[in-house]
């Protein structure tokens, strides 16, 4: 593990997979965070867009903010969703870019990928696909994306600089990153920052 990282990246990924596997298969369990339609309303998503989605597209949503709140996507744009989970933000993005755009969701949790792919197939969204991969090593070619979105994922990555570097790689020059994530106003004690259990709990 590099000296400048607080926790081991692979150990953290393992814990994140375990947590979000549970969110995929048992979305109505009691988590320390909100999920589903109530969360989407709390975070200010457009009600009409959320209401149009089937329950399985929304129930495992566990974002922390709204990556579309500062700017709505433009029809025809090419979008990458980093840590796409069960696909909620990718489905919203697919609706905003329309049939002329393209959305690629990238996630590392098999149960989330299976759920998002099944939902996309049921919705018949040809402009949307989901690929298995890590935020630090995305299966997307250099400069492909007009926009990269993400929601509550980067805080769960041990090497945030590596994630931002990877996002920059897949963006075209002048392309935008629009993400939502958490930030703390009071400092977290150093010993807590090195406690991997606290990262996902």
């Amino acid at each position, binding site marked *: 593990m590099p000296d400048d990282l607080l926790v081991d990246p692979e150990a953290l990924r393992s814990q994140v997979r375990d947590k979000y596997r549970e969110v995929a298969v048992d979305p109505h369990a009691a988590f320390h*965070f909100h999920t589903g339609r109530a969360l989407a309303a709390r975070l200010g998503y457009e009600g009409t867009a959320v209401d149009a989605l089937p329950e399985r597209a929304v129930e495992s949503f566990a974002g922390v*903010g709204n990556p579309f*709140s500062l700017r709505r996507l433009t029809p025809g744009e090419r979008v990458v969703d980093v840590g796409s989970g069960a696909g909620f933000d990718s489905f919203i993005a697919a609706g905003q870019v329309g049939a002329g755009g393209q959305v690629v969701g990238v996630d590392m949790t098999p149960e989330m990928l299976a759920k998002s792919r099944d939902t996309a197939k049921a919705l018949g969204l040809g402009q949307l696909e989901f690929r298995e991969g890590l935020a630090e090593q995305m299966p997307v070619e250099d400069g492909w994306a007009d926009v990269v979105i993400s929601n509550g994922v980067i805080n769960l990555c041990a090497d945030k600089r590596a994630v931002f*570097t990877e996002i920059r790689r897949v963006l075209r020059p002048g392309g935008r*990153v629009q*993400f939502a*994530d958490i*930030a703390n*106003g*009071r400092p977290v004690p150093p010993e807590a920052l090195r406690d991997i259990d606290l990262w996902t709990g």
Partner: protein
Amino acid sequence: MLEDSGYTGVVIGEAVDTFGGAKGEDKARAFEVYGYAFMASRAP
């Protein structure tokens, strides 16, 4: 970190009470944890 990683024009949205009413609310309050939207452009 965004600017150091090759992005410009960083915009940060209003804080959102992401954890209010959830099981994790107490911990979030202790460290003033909120959700934010961020936007930035890849520098040419």
